[in-house]
């Protein structure tokens, strides 16, 4: 295997007196999909936020392409080629779909003081990328705030895929998606992975994780429970780990093996 794109070692993160991460080690190689799994509140979102420059870790080191690096802002991380779909999506409800899509990285035309936002091109790209994900936008200038939950999530994913040059981080990207959109997203992950992009995929759905993941790291209460490669672990084992080893409530109807 080549060297990891990102290697994070012993990451700790405290919020005031709350300990959200207590020493997590994690890496992503190019062309692999590394799944980050764990119970609610395990610290997954906090962890990927330190990876994408939103939080500064309280302790621990980050190596990006072999060099120690500390991102001062998400913009730095983005410029290094890391694109993220945050769990809260990081969208501005009052702005149009296109403007959200290109927020921070607008395509321009003209030059000098006439350099301007190329709205037409942007609209076109945006509609197209959304259609690729299975959403037919009524109009690219619709405000994001009036989109349905799944439509909104799709915008965030399409945006990240469009800009994710080296690493693509997806925090529960399929949570609000319909079946069609979900399968599109999963196949998109498979596609970008083949192009050599490293993917970090967070999910609570064991089936989704097993479908696209190459390695699986499970967090529990701010700490790593361990990492397993595909084939070394069964869905049922993985599910047990994700639930923190605790018993699942039994259902009179049958949920089959995996939730």
């Amino acid at each position, binding site marked *: 295997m080549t060297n990891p794109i990102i290697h994070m070692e012993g990451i700790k993160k405290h919020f005031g007196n709350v300990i959200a991460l207590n020493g997590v080690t994690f890496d992503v190689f190019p062309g692999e999909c590394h799944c980050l799994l764990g119970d609610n509140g395990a610290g997954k979102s906090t962890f990927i936020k330190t990876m994408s420059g939103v939080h500064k870790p309280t302790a621990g080191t980050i190596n990006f392409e072999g060099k120690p690096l500390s991102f001062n802002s998400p913009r730095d991380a983005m410029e290094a080629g890391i694109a993220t779909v945050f769990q809260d999506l*990081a*969208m*501005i409800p*009052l702005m149009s779909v296109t403007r959200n899509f290109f927020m*921070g990285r607008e395509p321009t035309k003209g030059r000098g003081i006439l350099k301007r936002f190329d709205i037409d091109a942007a609209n*076109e790209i945006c509609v197209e990328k959304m259609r690729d994900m299975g959403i037919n936008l009524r109009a690219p200038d619709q405000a994001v705030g009036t989109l349905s939950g799944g439509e909104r999530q799709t915008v965030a994913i399409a945006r990240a895929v469009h800009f994710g040059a080296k690493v693509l981080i997806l925090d529960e990207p399929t949570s609000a998606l319909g079946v069609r959109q979900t399968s599109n997203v999963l196949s998109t992950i498979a596609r970008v992975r083949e192009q050599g992009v490293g993917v970090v995929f967070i999910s609570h759905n064991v089936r989704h994780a097993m479908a696209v993941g190459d390695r699986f790291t499970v967090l529990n209460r701010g700490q790593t429970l361990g990492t397993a490669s595909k084939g070394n672990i069964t869905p049922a084992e993985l599910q047990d780990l994700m639930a923190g080893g605790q018993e699942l409530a039994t259902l009179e109807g049958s949920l089959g093996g995996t939730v």
Partner: protein
Amino acid sequence: MLAKANPGIDERIKSEPFMTRLMKRPELGAIGGVILVTIFFMITADSAMFTLSGIMNFMTPAAQLGILGIAAAMLMIGGEFDLSIGSMVAFAGMIFGVFTVNVGLPLIFAIPLTLAFAASIGAVNGMIVIRTGLPSFIVTLASLFILRGASLVGLKLFTDGSTQLRGVRDAVENDFLTPIFSGEAFGFVFRKLADIGVLETFKSGLPKVPGVPVEILWFIAFALVATYILLRTSAGNWIFATGGDSNAAQNSGVPVRRVKISLFMVTAMAAALVAIITVIDAGSTDARRGFMKEFEAIITAVIGGCLLTGGYGSAIGAFFGAIIFGMVTIGLTYTDFDQDWFQVFLGGMLLIAVVFNNAIRKRVTGER
């Protein structure tokens, strides 16, 4: 490619008349208010109000206010306030007066220096807001007091004890830049028109309207540039994003700090521009210049449809907002209403104009 961007007809969209689509734009809502106010004064005011000279007369204060209002609108869209705009007018006026009268600089140096001075104060405001994480309301409130006080102290210092600095007009009278920042433009056109009898003249034969006051041109130019920036550039997109949700914007890679600091600088420079124009026009400056203008600028922006919470609004809206405000304040003097009732009318008219804007916008956009 084009076919893709317009994916044919969607059965889930009703067709929409052109007018409705037009009216949905926030910048156009404020036009409704302008029309309403115009009709009101057409009926109640002296006919002199809508002569050419009457229009110039209410457009002049509207323009001065509007330059501040547009800057305030941009800053509000970016999610911040600047309460020091009014004090900045006094302070920049004082600085400008000192540069021209006491130091004797020509305008080509005095104006850029004044603007740079103002911009650096704006940048300090922005930096404090970002560093401390305090609301800009309280930070710029402190600047309001500090700049107002500094103007007083400065004026007393540079005039040996007076709170009024005079003689600016004499100092810049022959400067080649003066016509750009004061007086009327296109005077020759107006004289021509008066000669051939198109324009009314005074008994002396001079046209009643000697030209278009330059502030009106600045006002229009600034509104156009601001609109262009907001709607057609990356910077504009960043401003909306920053104001809409600065956290989300930051996470999406918008340089939020840079945007905010730039906006504070623009606002301060707009205040300095108004200071320069009014100081050259008046020939003097005093410690109370621009009093309460921060307030009026915010009002202007809000009439024009800006949200106080940020992320929504337009420069053209503020443009019309300033015209509404200017028309109402000056217009009431053209009517026969007793001055005692002035404020009651002012309040009433503002409310009616804004309610009307809003009602139109709601009607055409459907319920939210």
